[in-house]
């Protein structure tokens, strides 16, 4: 196990989102193999799925490793020559297209470059960005000002199509703070629980967590915001919005009225957030509503970042049309040639394929992916170093400064953006100094060698020097001790941005609200298409990451593809009868054919398509996955298109879905109640729902004891156990990928996922609270009930439950799965012969079998696994370096499953023995061991530790909670993992006014006996 002191600030690849801060784990040899968050950082909130998976990219053999000129490999020297030429021509006609970033060093270097070479222009591009939020904020509060929502203080939250728990991260530790606001350990907590209203047309993880969710098509959010604004006393700002919000729900007026009253009565603890995909006008209304509710200074901080928004790709396109761009240097990771909205025609524009526009003569692309559209159209491609290989820095949403330190030298010799900027900035004097330094060092080294002494240490990399300079600027002076502290902690405490004044510039706002046109509600003839960030590959930059591709999309449970998600009613109207039936979507003059998947709860006449898929030649994992929706998008409204014509087609596309079933089938699996129920009787609903909760005690025929009556479980040892709080779990997949990274879990490819051979040790079961009378079929769920239009969604992570009376153990003929004295259900891979009886007998279906040699034979080559010994191997490439050296890599023919990260437990025990070698039976301290899924969870849903009665551990306290229940208690297996029932906190006034909400909220399992 690595030393967590070896830290690096971890940066998300996608710059538009919160920069998370994490400690990377180096293994014994010092290479990073797994990423964990930095618990010291103020906005540390787990490690999300993409951040976890970024470690796989570090070792991706298909990562860019060569300098390419027009697609052909060239030497570094040739590139240096070209760079020198470029440098000579820097100035007017040179444009940079950078990603959205908050790196002070990058900003400083760009500024220096612009100072030294007048006329260099810098544009910013992200396929999925918060540009409209930034535009609205800057218009209202001034350039460089940003809003930082503070969910810790928010008691009443309204999300206007904002997935702040999922892809629309707004900054800060939103998932952590939101879930802390819902943490209920006692009746007292239940009174102070926060309340979330979600208005959305798509299904988001945020909508799943909402107490009240109203289906509003994305294009109608503006009118909904207007309605809300009028009700909370911000009607003036909304007056410019044409049209009135309408819904087919009869109780919609009551919904808005009660919601508004609830917000107003929150005394400043209310917060309204709007999705970054919404127009600036919606964000203006959100600002007005927040202002009226007194949110600024309370639930929203305004900060002065000092770095106003850069001009967008739209401005760049104008410059290209004007013919003023000669050198275009693209460093954004968002792959504009692929991801830019169709009507921009970015690729055609720079290639000069548009009438009257001449080609951009020199395009240079810096990126970790040479297998992307932008790299292919560039004249030069520079391999970028991974963030774990390079120096860098970043500021969190609140401004906290972090240093990114390399954990490993560049594996393939790539350059970071800072390296490139440095090389371009360098003036003659600096160059001379550098060469002189190098010469001097060579001479010294020669002298030392002559004297038989070791060579002097390498000088620090220039990039580090620049980062240090940025640090000095922010820290207010050069202080080695402070710098060393920052390197140790990963961040500089107290380096937040200064607060900004909440004075709205009314003129600017009015200007922004001018000329709004009414968008009619979608109909069957003119549907709405919402383009959403993908939960896995985001905007497509992670397309070649096998872990992310194979992770099931949290709501539709699709792997290796995207699809058109539609509601049940829409599907009926269109004639879509099964999952994967193709539909033809025509909008903005473009047509896309893609498979449809029915999801109960999406707004009617809305099609939701995730972006990022359908890329050509993007690597083994990415090629051939999904369908590219970018051509359908337009710059004016990049995430919402209206007037779409959608038709169902005859053919069906094979989707690899891991959980097609919707209903819990009358089984109280994910138990749910309301805060009120909990207040009345803490144990009531969790202990009474479902037949599992009222069965007579189980009497096992095999007693868990040895031949002489000694118990198998050793009470003097730490007894490991886990709780998963379903009130916090959003279903985001972070645990799934963290587990994959920690435990060397292979991917199996789309074909094998279709064969139900997925290997994830922890999976997220997603249910809709629908009362289905149908049953599961490959073709999908038979729909014969109207309550599937607008149900609740519940999520439940399921891994091996480490049953004390494990059904898997009694049936293994060779004793390959047995119980350890500290309560683990352990797998002896070497003993396993693979009868698979254990997995049949596992009620939780938590066991996974190696049907092929996934670790040896590449599952991503079609048909390769079926070739057996003749198949192509992949255990000889760089990916093996990612493997956790403390975890066995399993061969084919053996069973595997969650081990509670037994390698971590063993390490902790060994350490306890070392620390307390004189003590009798030393055990790890309570709560000192954390497992991979627990650490990764952004909403702190997973607790792990000693479950003994007197241990005083956090997990013990939770197990004593009234919300605690065992999954499938009927089986009597005494699982060590238990669940904490989900609580909804509905607005009593709204429940009183709406029968629909009364029947829906918190009622997923209420009627189950």
């Amino acid at each position, binding site marked *: 196990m690595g030393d967590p002191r070896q830290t690096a600030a971890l940066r998300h690849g996608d710059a538009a989102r919160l920069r998370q801060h994490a400690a990377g784990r180096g293994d014994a040899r010092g290479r990073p193999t797994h990423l964990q968050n930095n618990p010291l950082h103020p906005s540390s909130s787990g490690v999300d799925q993409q951040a976890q998976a970024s470690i796989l990219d570090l070792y991706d053999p298909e990562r860019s490793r060569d300098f390419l000129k027009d697609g052909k490999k060239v030497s570094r020297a040739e590139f240096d020559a070209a760079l020198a030429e470029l440098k000579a021509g820097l100035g007017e006609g040179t444009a940079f297209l950078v990603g959205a970033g908050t790196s002070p060093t990058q900003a400083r270097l760009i500024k220096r470059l612009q100072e030294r070479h007048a006329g260099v222009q810098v544009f910013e591009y992200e396929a999925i960005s918060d540009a409209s939020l930034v535009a609205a904020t800057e218009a209202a509060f001034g350039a460089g000002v940003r809003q930082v929502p503070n969910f810790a203080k928010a008691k009443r939250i309204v999300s206007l199509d904002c997935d702040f728990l999922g892809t629309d991260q707004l900054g800060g530790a939103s998932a952590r703070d939101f879930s802390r606001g819902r943490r209920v350990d006692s009746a007292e907590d239940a009174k102070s629980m926060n309340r979330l209203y979600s208005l959305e047309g798509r299904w988001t993880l945020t909508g799943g967590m909402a107490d009240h969710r109203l289906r509003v098509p994305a294009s109608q959010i503006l009118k909904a915001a207007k309605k809300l604004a009028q009700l909370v006393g911000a009607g003036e700002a909304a007056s410019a919005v044409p049209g009135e919000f309408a819904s087919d729900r009869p109780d919609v007026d009551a919904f808005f009225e009660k919601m508004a009253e609830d917000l107003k009565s929150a005394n400043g603890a209310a917060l309204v957030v709007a999705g970054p995909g919404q127009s600036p006008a919606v964000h203006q209304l959100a600002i007005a509503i927040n202002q009226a509710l007194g949110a600024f200074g309370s639930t929203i901080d305004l900060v002065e970042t000092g770095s106003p928004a850069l001009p967008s790709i739209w401005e760049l396109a104008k410059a290209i049309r004007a013919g003023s761009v000669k050198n275009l240097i693209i460093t954004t990771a968002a792959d504009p040639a692929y991801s830019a909205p169709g009507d921009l025609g970015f690729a055609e524009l720079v290639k000069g394929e548009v009438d009257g526009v001449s080609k951009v003569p020199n395009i240079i692309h810096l990126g970790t992916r040479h297998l992307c559209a932008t790299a292919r159209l560039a004249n030069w491609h520079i391999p970028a170093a991974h963030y774990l290989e390079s120096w860098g820095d970043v500021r969190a949403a609140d401004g906290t400064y972090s240093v990114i330190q390399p954990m490993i030298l560049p594996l393939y010799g790539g350059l970071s953006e800072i390296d490139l900027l440095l090389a371009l900035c360098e003036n003659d004097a600096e160059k001379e100094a550098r060469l002189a330094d190098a010469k001097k060092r060579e001479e010294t080294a020669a002298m030392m060698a002559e004297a038989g002494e070791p060579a002097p240490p390498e000088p620090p990399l220039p990039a580090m020097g620049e980062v240090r300079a940025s640090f000095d600027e922010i820290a207010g002076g050069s202080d080695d001790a402070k710098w060393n502290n920052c390197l140790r902690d990963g961040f500089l405490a107290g380096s937040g941005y200064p607060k900004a004044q909440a004075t709205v510039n009314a003129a600017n706002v009015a200007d922004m609200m001018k000329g709004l046109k009414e968008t009619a509600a979608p109909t069957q003839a003119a549907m709405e298409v919402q383009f959403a960030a993908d939960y896995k590959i985001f905007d497509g930059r992670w397309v070649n990451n096998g872990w992310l591709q194979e992770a099931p999309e949290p709501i539709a449970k699709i792997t290796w593809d995207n699809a058109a998600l539609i509601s049940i009613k829409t599907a009926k109207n269109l004639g879509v009868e099964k999952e994967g039936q193709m539909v033809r979507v025509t909008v903005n003059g473009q047509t896309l054919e893609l498979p449809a998947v029915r999801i109960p709860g999406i707004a009617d006449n809305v099609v939701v398509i995730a972006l990022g898929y359908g890329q050509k030649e993007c690597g083994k994992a990415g090629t051939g996955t999904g369908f590219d929706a970018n051509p359908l998008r337009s710059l004016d409204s990049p995430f919402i298109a209206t007037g779409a014509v959608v038709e169902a087609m005859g053919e069906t596309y094979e989707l690899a879905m891991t*959980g097609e*079933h919707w*209903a819990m*089938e009358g*089984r109280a*699996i994910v138990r749910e109640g309301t805060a009120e129920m909990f207040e009345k009787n803490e144990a009531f609903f969790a202990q009474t729902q479902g037949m599992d909760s009222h069965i007579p005690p189980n009497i096992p025929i095999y007693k868990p004891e040895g031949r002489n009556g000694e118990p198998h479980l050793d009470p003097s040892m730490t007894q490991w156990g886990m709780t998963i709080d379903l009130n916090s779990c959003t279903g985001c997949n972070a645990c799934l990928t963290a587990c994959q990274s920690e435990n060397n879990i292979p991917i199996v490819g789309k074909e*094998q996922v279709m*064969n*139900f*051979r997925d290997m994830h040790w922890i*999976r997220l*079961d*997603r*249910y809709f609270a629908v009362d289905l009378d149908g*049953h*599961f*079929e*490959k073709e999908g769920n038979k729909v014969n009930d109207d309550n599937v239009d607008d149900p609740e969604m519940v999520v*439940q992570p*399921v891994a091996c439950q480490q049953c004390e009376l494990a*059904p898997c*153990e009694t*049936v*293994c*003929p*060779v*004793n390959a799965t047995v119980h350890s004295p500290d309560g683990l259900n352990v797998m002896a891979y070497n*003993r*396993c*012969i*693979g*009868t*698979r*009886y254990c*997995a*049949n*007998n596992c*009620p*939780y*279906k938590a066991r*996974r*079998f*190696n*049907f*092929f*040699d996934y670790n040896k034979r590449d599952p991503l080559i079609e048909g390769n*696994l*079926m*070739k*057996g*010994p003749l198949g192509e191997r992949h255990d000889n490439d760089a990916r093996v370096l990612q493997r956790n050296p403390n975890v066995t890599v399993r*061969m*084919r*023919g*053996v*069973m595997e499953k969650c081990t509670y990260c037994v390698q971590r437990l063993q390490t902790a025990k060994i350490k306890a023995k070392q620390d307390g070698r004189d003590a009798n039976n030393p055990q790890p301290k309570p709560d000192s061991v954390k497992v991979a899924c627990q650490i990764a969870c952004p909403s702190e849903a997973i607790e792990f530790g000693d479950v003994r009665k007197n241990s005083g551990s956090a997990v013990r306290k939770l197990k004593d909670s009234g919300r605690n229940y065992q*999954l*499938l208690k*009927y*089986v009597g297996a005494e699982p060590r993992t238990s669940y904490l029932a989900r609580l909804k906190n509905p607005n009593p006034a709204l429940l009183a006014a709406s029968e629909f909400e009364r029947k829906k909220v918190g009622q997923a399992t209420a009627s189950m006996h």
Partner: protein
Amino acid sequence: MATGTTATSSGERNVLRRDALVLNNRSFAWITNRVCGIIENRQPLLWWILFLPCAALAAFGVAGLLSYLVSTGVGVWGNNNRVMWGWPIVNFVFWIGIGHAGTLISAILFLTRQNWRTSVNRAAEAMTIFAVMCAGLFPAFHVGRIWMAWFLAPIPNANAIWQNFKSPLLWDVFAVSTYFTVSLIFWFLGMVPDLASIRDRCKPGLRKLLYGIASLGWRGGNRQWRHYEMAYLLLAALSTPLVLSVHSVVSFDFATSVVPGWHTTIFPPYFVAGAIFGGFAMVLTLMIPARAIYGLHDLITMKHVDNMAKIILLTGSIVGYAYLMELFISYYGANKYEAAAFEKRVTGPFWWAYASMMFCNVVAPQAFWFKWCRQNLMVVMVVAMFVNIGMWFERFVIIVTTLPRMWLPGDWGDFSPTWVDIWTFIGTIGMFLALFLLFLRFLPCINIAEVKWTKEGAHVHDDGHQSDNEITERQYRGDEAVPTAG
């Protein structure tokens, strides 16, 4: 057709007579010649036409595809993380069930003095051996690491790890291997006198040597017969509980699990009845053509067919009762999971498998209430084929329709077999038939010695006692006409 209920007009005893077991008053010599002739004469062309494709299927499906499986991984079959046991275990239970009729006929019917067993027991036992061989292949090869399968054997080892004797799968290993061993010995022992007959009829040479070795120095002396009969009786007594235990143990694989739809106490009797049911159907499937090809009508008579049809009717009804009882209990038991498991079986996506099972196993054998159906070989063959198919579907229903939809709907999956599944199963059918054809070719397919016992003349100290034989003494002496088989 001899009806067996006709009283003779002038016989001394005015009783209901049993049907003759050897028709046409065939002599001892005729029986020996006819049975040994199968081995000694050239095989009919039909034998080759049947044998070559069967052997080819066995070579491809068993030798070829199992090599592929071992070299590549269990993933070449359709098993998945929801349905960990798919076709291989369906096939295992199917074949092991077939392997039940043989020992039942040899042992239980021997102990209960059912003389009609003698003309079919040898072939039925051979069928048992071959069926158990086919059965054994599947659990052996379906494990992920067959090269480590010796972990199942209680061999002292350096790891000091013992087997898990709580596991029904381990019981299975012992039950099936014991059953196979005892059946093999029983079969071989019963063949010794007949092998000696063949030896005695051979010209000197390799054949004679081999049959000589196999007949263990049998000379047919009194002491040898005395020992032989005692040994045979003891083995019959040993085999009898095995007939019941093997399939009970196989059913424990399911019944002792926690899987809804498997966890039922009805399984052991229901499995045993099903196995006898399927086994007799397979005996009929094999013997009716063999009888026609080798002209054994006088030894394997309609009486035999009729008896076996009645057993099929009986066991089929027991199986049908079990099916209905399972449904009733799942409805009456108020256990959601169990009820759902059965509901999914009947109305779920595999409803067609359940319907096929019900029709083939419960409806089709009802034809055997009617004598005309029992006496019509075409009908018997068709019903027997239905039962063969139905019994495969029964195991398919139990395994494949249960596992993908168990406790947590969020993880429900599906199952479909691969071409390797299908061809491996077809390969075992080829292997089974090829072995059976080799048996017909090289070993006495009818128990020559025992068939002769059923004839009156075998009773050398006959004191006028009318045994369960087929004709009266007067008929034997020719004083009275023997009713001819119709």
